[in-house]
């Protein structure tokens, strides 16, 4: 064995702000919250042992969808980590190629499940994308403009986002979308966006705040919980939020749902905007009475996975570190929470119903929640759970990946649909809005009828049937 050639034992614990942070906080147009000081460094400031933890054994390779597609090490978790380490070691700059590679990664975290050494890839990936944004390696005017409008403008302003949602609903409900599609105005759009128009999700006429009261409870509640309504979920799947509240009520909870909630910042953290993500985290924490709640409930896998990292995200923030740590402990995915308190079995007659379950990456890999959603489904009388082949393989939605990497996303979508159709069921359950939309779109493309439902919606339906019978 020959020892490594590095010159010193390097264990930086407190990342220092870099000069580039000044630039990014100037660009922080949407964030007016307090304390938008920088606490996030780049790869060189990272605790080196996190990178070193990768022993490049290769166990991640067979579980990585991008490596599976190309068989190139650069497109694998250990390959990407080796590039991050080269940057941390000062042997390479954050080049354009590096930037593209970091955005080719789905961030599905299947590698974290496979990793024998417990490498925190999700954390490395966020820091690496942040490094790419700070380096400006991928800068071009159009990309910058889109990012600025979406990440810093729209997804930091819940009321504006709802207004856009309302606009989308009007576009769809008024018949404008029908006219647009009938006249094939699609052809006028740039090629990259043509497919996107057809993928536009259907907005709901009501938001969560229209159908959920700030406090709801049945008699003698046993638990007091806070309810997160999300941003995308709020606009296009607000009924899932209603279903979640109904299920919580049916399981003895008093549910507190603040009317206006900011985006959790998952989108920002995954896309290299850690400062904005921190700001959103602070604002979201402030909208709940954390001390007096037993748990904060989320029903969206992608959000949950990120919401649980607030403790780490804000650990350098003296004013918030304690609250954020408490938040991380109290934050529960709905299935996880129900499993902990014990699901009350719906008292309905069994209607035979075959359902398969697609595991959202950020539930099974990001939060290691695999048994609980199955428990939820199996608690429904008459429901037969048919296991899905490759249930933990990414469907290609991956946040905004289907927008940034349409080809790879489409391949994964096709693979997922093929697996779902092989089970012969007509309903697939999944617990993430991104996956939900990706599966609906996949079924449309495949020309097949497929019901896509949140497991909690299926459970809520069973409780409702109970009331009708009772």
């Amino acid at each position, binding site marked *: 064995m020959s020892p490594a050639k590095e010159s010193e034992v390097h264990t930086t614990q407190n990342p220092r702000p870099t000069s580039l942070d000044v630039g990014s906080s100037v660009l922080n147009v949407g964030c007016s919250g307090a304390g938008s000081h920088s606490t996030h460094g780049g790869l060189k400031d990272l605790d080196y042992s996190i990178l070193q933890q990768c022993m*490049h*054994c290769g166990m991640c390779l067979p579980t990585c969808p991008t490596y599976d597609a190309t068989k190139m*090490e650069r497109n694998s978790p250990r390959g990407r980590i080796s590039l991050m380490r080269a940057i941390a070691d000062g042997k390479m700059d954050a080049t354009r190629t590096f930037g593209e590679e970091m955005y080719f990664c789905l961030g599905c975290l299947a590698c974290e499940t496979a990793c024998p050494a417990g490498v925190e890839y999700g954390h490395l990936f966020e820091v690496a994308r942040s490094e790419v944004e700070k380096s400006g390696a991928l800068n071009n005017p159009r990309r910058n403009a889109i990012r600025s409008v979406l990440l810093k403008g729209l997804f930091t302003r819940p009321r504006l986002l709802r207004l856009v949602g309302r606009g989308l609903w009007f576009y769809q409900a008024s018949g404008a979308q029908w006219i647009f599609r009938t006249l094939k105005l699609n052809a006028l759009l740039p090629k990259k966006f043509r497919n996107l128009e057809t993928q536009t999700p259907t907005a709901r006429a009501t938001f969560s705040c229209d159908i959920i009261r700030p406090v709801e409870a049945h008699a003698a509640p046993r638990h007091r919980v806070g309810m997160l309504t999300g941003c995308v979920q709020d606009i296009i799947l607000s009924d899932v939020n209603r279903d979640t509240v109904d299920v919580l009520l049916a399981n003895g909870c008093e549910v507190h749902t603040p009317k206006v909630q900011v985006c959790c910042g998952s989108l920002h953290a995954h896309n290299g905007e850690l400062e904005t993500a921190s700001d959103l985290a602070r604002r979201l924490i402030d909208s709940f009475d954390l001390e007096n709640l037993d748990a904060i409930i989320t029903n969206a896998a992608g959000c949950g996975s990120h919401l649980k990292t607030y403790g780490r995200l804000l650990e350098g923030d003296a004013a918030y570190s304690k609250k954020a740590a408490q938040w991380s402990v109290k934050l529960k995915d709905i299935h996880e929470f129900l499993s902990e308190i014990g699901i009350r079995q719906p008292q309905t007659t069994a209607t035979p119903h075959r359902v398969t379950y697609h595991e959202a990456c950020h539930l099974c890999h990001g939060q290691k929640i695999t048994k609980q959603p199955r428990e939820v489904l199996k608690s429904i009388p008459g429901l037969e759970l048919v296991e899905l082949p490759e249930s933990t393989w990414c469907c290609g939605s991956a946040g905004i990946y289907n927008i940034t990497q349409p080809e790879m996303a489409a391949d994964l979508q096709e693979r997922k649909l093929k697996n779902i159709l092989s089970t012969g069921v007509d309903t697939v359950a999944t617990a993430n809005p991104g996956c939900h939309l990706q599966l609906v779109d996949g079924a449309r493309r495949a020309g097949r009828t497929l019901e896509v439902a949140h497991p909690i919606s299926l459970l809520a339906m069973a409780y409702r049937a109970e009331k009708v019978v009772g």
Partner: protein
Amino acid sequence: MTAKFKSLAAAQFPHIARLEEKEDLIPYSFDGTATFQTMPDLVLFPTSAEEVAGLVKNAGECGVPVVTRGSGTGLSGGSIPVEGSVVLCLSKMNRILEVDEKNLTLLAEAGAITLDVATAAEKAGLFYPPDPGSMKISTIGGNVAENSGGLRGLKYGVTKDYVMGLEVVLASGEVIFTGNKCVKDVAGYSLRDLFIGSEGTLGIVTKVLLKLIPKPATRRTLMAVFATMESAAETVSAIIAAKIIPCTLEFLDAVTINCVEDFAKVGLPRDAAAILLIETDGHPAAVAEEADRMAELARQHGATSVQVAETAEQASALATARRAAFSSLARVAPTTILEDATVPRSELAKMIRFIQETGQRHNLKIGTFGHMGDGNLHPTFLTNERNHEEMHRVELAMKEIFDFAVSLGGTITGEHGVGLAKKEFLKAATSDLNLEIMRRMKSAFDPAGILNPRKIFNA
């Protein structure tokens, strides 16, 4: 030299995928071995033996070293590039070409994944027993090159026991097929056997013809916990003396047991000195009888508890501790160095004791687990490669452990190979004359020394 090779290869094989940018090459500068890294000049992905042969010929003409690579999971540095080398990555040659149920053979390209080979055999109701730890991604060509082992060595042997034939590209660019589907064949030297375990230094394996066996009808798992190392070792000896050959006989030491408890919380007794995980397979009646007998022997030799699984779920639960062993150890420190000192079965207790004492003497954390049935141990060093003072102690301890293994009639590596990591210890493990004959073989097959040079030994 490389420039000339690049232009030759580009002209003759324009369609072969190639990588030459820094961002693409860095991920090919290492394999699964700790602390080694060297950049290649170029990585190529040939898709047939003809292409491999053509590229090797070009490399010979230009004097460019060629390093063959599969999935890069090796643990001795065998597939790490050497200075100025071109890497031939065979990952795209991954087809399983034939399962012959009449002759019980399977033919695959060298880049086929080991698990895919095992699955293809299983689909035909057959069994490919070698199961190296990385089989989900390791390639069969890499397994042949390193003569990989696994958990079933005691009963079923290792990779070499299943290789019936090989297609090999020689350093000259010629292609041979050595071996066939005959169980018996004594026509001339068995060239096939020379390439097994040669770590890509004598030729490049491009196809592998494997022997398959019938799938065992059933299996039974048991776990025994011991308060002393000696009682565990005596149990193993008693099982073998009772003429029982279990298919796996795995062992965890006290450090490993505690790491497993820290990480996986399986419910193992923290004061235990050793745990044995034993599995027997075959005809249901024989399996039941052997399992009962082994449980009895374990109790007789001082096991503090013995659990026999009644169902597949219970078996899986019992195997959790063994499955979690390596990952539990790997989480403890930034650098994990997995070694594979091996001794005759009868010397296991002495060897394990020595490893523990050596760890204490050098103030190092070493967890040992491994294949008790075949004497193949995995002393695992939990350290930090950036701590040079500690790494120095790791090197000292490692040398002492290897020397002691050899003094017991053992060897420096049971299943990982020599590659770069064990080069300096090879002299101790074999005689000068053996080494000299290896050198003569190398120069007979590869006179210019272009195939994976400076691996195993310096020419």
